């Protein structure tokens, strides 16, 4: 059993990175990720973590450094938010193509403009198709566990892909929560030393990042996609193994009070906890409401998702970002695609809310439930969505 502490989640995340004994950290400070890298810088400076902390001049350099250090076989960590992720975008796509097992904590924040530092999911959705394994955490414990989990999965030679751990900016990063630290021997059992599949080393030279002509590019992309799909069974197995060590077992799609539920909320990230309060209230009023929380976003858990919505008539999908000119929110778009052609196809009602940190309370989710009940479900189209709370 680990030690139970009350601590700011950013500090806990940095401590988990320290426990993973990383070799290289390259990051540029940006709100709301700052406390994580500041604490890591302190740990390195004070001799509590033997690692290279490389204070780069931009996020583009941060991810470039990470690619280089991971390619030589160093356990590598970075952390960013919003515009920082946008600035590193070019290299974000290269890391999975080179199969470099970098771990990134993305403290989710809205993208400009207007300029905003607050939390939503527009940053992560901009790299949805980059090829990273993408996971969402709901609270501090999940963040701590998943930092260690991310290294284990990323560096698994059957996976060898970068992992992005999404944690809601401020709502998680700046909040003090009770959580259980792992004992060092738990980490030792769970996380073996990093043995890269390929490494840049003069004894056995290889070329990373060669160009690909039209004659090979399609095959390279197919191979990358197959690698991401093949990561899923390894992710599931690693969650089970982590459960044996910590007593906390995670699933790609988490369920809350879904028994006999006719209406399911679908959330990602920290709002799952808020919605669970609304579900409790609805249940106490005799409503057959439940909640699905998407933990694994890439590779998308089609099978588990379809299984989880069996029996539901209506899904209230909450999106924390907007796909301009598209089908509303990216999560609802994916879910509608996942359900298309199924014999049992629940109606998807899509609410976009909580943009740039605007508060959404349990009462608001009750209101969304009420509004979805009043809708003519037969008339809901694939591209329909509601921007909840927008002033008309």
């Amino acid at each position, binding site marked *: 059993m680990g030690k139970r502490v009350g601590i700011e989640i950013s500090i806990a995340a940095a401590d988990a990175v320290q426990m993973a004994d990383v070799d290289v950290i390259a990051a540029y400070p940006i709100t709301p990720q700052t406390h994580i890298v500041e604490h890591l810088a302190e740990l390195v400076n004070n001799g509590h973590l033997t690692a290279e902390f490389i204070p780069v001049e931009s996020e583009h350099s941060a991810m470039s450094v990470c690619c280089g250090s991971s390619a030589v076989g160093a356990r590598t960590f970075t952390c960013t938010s919003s515009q920082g992720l946008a600035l590193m975008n070019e290299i974000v796509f290269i890391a999975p*193509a*080179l*199969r*470099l097992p970098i771990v990134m904590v993305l403290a989710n924040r809205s993208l400009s403009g207007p300029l905003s530092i607050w939390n939503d999911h527009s940053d992560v959705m901009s790299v949805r198709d980059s090829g990273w394994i993408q996971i969402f955490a709901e609270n501090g414990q999940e963040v701590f566990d998943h930092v260690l989990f991310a290294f284990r999965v990323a560096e698994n030679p059957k996976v*060898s892909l970068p992992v992005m751990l999404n944690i809601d900016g401020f709502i998680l990063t700046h909040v003090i929560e009770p959580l259980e630290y792992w004992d060092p021997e738990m980490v030792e059992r769970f996380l073996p030393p990093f043995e890269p*599949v*390929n490494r840049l080393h003069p004894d*056995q*030279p*290889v*070329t*990373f990042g*060669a160009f*690909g*002509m039209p*004659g*090979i590019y*399609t*095959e*390279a992309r*197919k*191979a990358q996609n*197959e*690698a991401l799909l093949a990561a899923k069974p390894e992710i599931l197995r690693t969650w089970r193994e982590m459960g044996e060590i910590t007593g906390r077992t995670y699933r790609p799609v988490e369920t809350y009070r879904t028994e006999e539920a006719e209406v399911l909320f679908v959330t990602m990230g920290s709002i799952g906890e808020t919605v669970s309060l609304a579900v409790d209230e609805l249940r106490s009023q005799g409503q057959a409401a439940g909640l699905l929380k998407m933990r694994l976003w890439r590779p998308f858990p089609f099978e588990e998702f379809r299984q989880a919505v069996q029996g539901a008539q209506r899904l209230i999908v909450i999106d924390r970002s907007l796909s301009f000119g598209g089908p509303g929110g990216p999560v609802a778009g994916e879910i509608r695609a996942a359900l298309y052609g199924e014999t049992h196809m629940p109606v998807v009602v899509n609410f976009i809310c909580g943009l740039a940190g605007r508060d959404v309370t349990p009462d608001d989710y009750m209101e969304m439930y009420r509004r979805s009940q009043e809708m003519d479900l037969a008339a809901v189209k694939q591209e329909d969505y509601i921007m909840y709370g927008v002033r008309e």
Partner: protein
Amino acid sequence: MAKSEDELTWRDLEVGCVISDAGNACQYKTGDWRSMRPTVDKSRCIRCGVCYLFCPDMAIHKTDEGYFEADLYYCKGCGICAQECFTRCIDMVAEEE
């Protein structure tokens, strides 16, 4: 790499598309970029080798007779040899299918 680029399937590629054997760039047929090919009028060639020196792809080699000729597997038809030739003995002629 035993197979040529056009024969490789996605399963044949190494993890992350790394290239583990050295020197395989010589398999890459840059000659199929070419739209003009160099032709040499040997009667005017003084066998000085300036074309050989300037060829950016090292596609020009010396023959047993001491003349210089381009290996059309690699020659991209850039025309630098013709430009540099002192006696103007190299002509670039259009490739015709």
